[in-house]
């Protein structure tokens, strides 16, 4: 409960202590673990994706990864969003080398990983910003990188780019064991959400559920109870 977790506040990543967020991530893992055969699986890969940018995918994925690491599950957080990377800054590590260099074959993925950025958590940052990674994902490079990361990690958590904005999201997510769709309350419209779900379904991606992020409680308590 005492961990500092990465939160994006007013456009900047900060380490903050938000018990609710961490608690929800722990609950999320508790629910997700029922989908797996063991409570401490080996090399399970969980992807977080949203429909549009700014829905809180990175925040949720990183907090989820922190929650896994706290539980003793050796976790590698992979930043797949090359368009708006921020995890390196959030965990205060150099942005390069990262996934981009690994995909280009310039560095071994296991060597690009920053070890122990938090308790039981390693980080593979994006390694670059504003790069079109679609051509790099066409071959087996991403798959090979995942296989390399699987060695020495019980879990791989992928922070995928937004589904409706970048096509590489679907290329990354197809290798995941479970995908969680992150929805930001009061932002996303129902038709866009339905399109995302349809896309995931057509890709054959095993999405296991959705999370509602940044929900606001609009009704006062007494009305909430009354209605």
């Amino acid at each position, binding site marked *: 409960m005492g961990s500092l977790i990465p*939160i994006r*506040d007013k456009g900047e990543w900060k380490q*903050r202590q*938000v*018990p*609710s*967020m961490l*608690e*929800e*991530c722990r*609950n*999320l893992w508790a629910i*997700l673990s*029922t*989908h*797996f*055969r063991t409570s401490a*699986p080996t*090399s*399970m*890969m969980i992807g977080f994706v949203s429909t549009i940018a700014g829905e809180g995918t990175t925040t*949720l994925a990183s907090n989820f990864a922190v929650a896994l690491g706290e539980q003793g599950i050796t976790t590698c957080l992979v930043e797949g969003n090359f368009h708006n990377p921020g995890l390196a800054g959030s965990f205060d590590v150099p942005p390069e080398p990262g996934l981009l260099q690994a995909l280009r074959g310039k560095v071994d993925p296991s060597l690009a990983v920053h070890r122990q950025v938090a308790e039981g958590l390693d980080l593979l940052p994006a390694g670059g910003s504003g790069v079109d990674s679609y051509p790099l994902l066409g071959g*087996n490079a991403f*798959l090979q990188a995942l*296989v390399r990361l*699987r060695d020495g990690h019980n879990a791989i958590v992928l922070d995928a780019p937004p589904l409706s904005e970048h096509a590489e999201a679907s290329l990354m997510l197809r*290798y995941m*064991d*479970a995908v969680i*769709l992150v*929805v930001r*309350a*009061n*932002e*996303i*419209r*129902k*038709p866009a*959400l*339905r399109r995302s*779900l*349809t896309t995931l*379904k057509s890709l054959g991606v*095993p*999405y*296991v*559920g*959705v*999370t*509602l992020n*940044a*929900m*606001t*409680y*609009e*009704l*006062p*308590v007494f*009305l909430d109870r009354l*209605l």
Partner: protein
Amino acid sequence: MAEQINFIRRRQLVEPPVQAPLPPDDEPMTLRALVAAVFRWRRMLLVLGIVGALVGFVLAITKPNTYLSSGAFLVKTGGEQVQPNIFADPTKALYQPQLRSNAPKILLSGRVLRDVAERVGPEEILAPYDPPEMVVDSLLDRVKNLVFKLQSFLHADPHMPVTVDNAVEHLRENLIIETGGRDDLIEISYRANSKERAQRILATYMQVAQEVHLEVYNSPEEVEIIEENYREAGDRLKNAQLAMRVFLDSLSVQDFDLELTSNKNELRRLSVVKGTTESSVDQKKKRVGFLEAEVARQPELVDELVPEGVESAYLKSLRSQQAKYEQDLSTKLVAGYREDTSEIKQLRRRIADIEKSIEAELAKPSEDVRMVKKLVPNKRKDQLLTELNKAVSELEVDQESLVNLQRQEEELGKEIDALAAHKPHYDDLAQEVADARQAEQRAQILLDLARKKQRFAARGLSSLVLMDGASFPHDKEGPRRMVLIVGSTFGALAFGLLLITILQLTDRTVRTPDDLEAVAGIPVLAVIPRIDRKNLRRHETLRRRAGP
């Protein structure tokens, strides 16, 4: 490598996640969602309420005070009904709904208003709003003076020319004329920004209204025309009655309908009597036939034991009974009784018994009577002959009566036919008499009304009787400033609520876990509140209540 990954996936997941078809996107709006929308847009609602209140406040302070002077007329008929289309229903001539409904139209007519404008003066009617400046004693008085100046500035219309036409228009806008449903009272009010002006203008207006009303309903030559009409209606009635008299005399009847009806009744009576007589004739013919046959059957002479000496009283009694039974028998046979009926058989048996008794009585040796057989005249035949003659004479009387009845019936029929032939002409004449009488009555009513109106006019009396003169308004009539402010505020809030409802109806944003679950059709695994104090605290509270 890919196989390795797929193997891992298969190994990791116990079962594939439920990927049910997406649910339809047609959720109805709930009360909860609407209330939540109101709270979401509460700032907009607040702004709208404030704007509404401000608008109401501005309206309230910029509208000058208005004062209402009131008066009332009582509509009392002075014979004016002579002018409207009274021929529609003369029975309603005595009422005055038309006069009452005409009165407001006359009161708002251009003629009345123009007369008032000219008499009062357009500059008085169109005088700009000019409240008296208050003596400044306090800050409130200063504020009031400022408001008065603002009102004067806003309501001054320097471009409006002071003309009679504009004054008439102004009068029409500010006059209020109310007529109660069936009341004869007309209430009139005039609204102005000054108490004195309101009373002054209304008083002049009511005076002019009375004069004009009297004038428009006054027409001296009207009585002469109506008198002429009355005379013509009287002549028409006389002519119609004369024609009817001549017609009746030509038919020699006093009352055509009565004559025709009584003749028809008499014909019906004759028909009944004739039927009865015919039936009687038939019966009598049968009796005569029977009697003739009986007479023919009877011999002239018959053997009879004739007692010599004196007959005993018993024997006389037997003979009397025999004669009576024979009489009964004859009557019944004439009446149509058959021989095999019990009455006839009984009578014949009794007669036979009596004959046997007589023979036995005569056979008895008696000292006083001795029976001797002789040929004597048939008494029975004599009796039958007498009855036959009587029946024949009765038959003749009935037959003669029947002939007379037939003749009477024929004559009466001819008479009825003649009357029926004249019936259309009679109906035309009767209709003409009725129409002429009705027209004469109407003309009489109109003449009475016209004379009444003439008398009123001669005395200079209007049918609009002044009940209440123009009152002096002590209190302002408007504006109702608080109502304006409150109404404007609530109006703006209502508009805001309507806007919010429309926004909510068209809103397709995902806001709650329920929304998300309804759209996705898969479970919501986690709900993370917005990172701010209010939402985090609320989330924590809810989570503690919900338990682990």
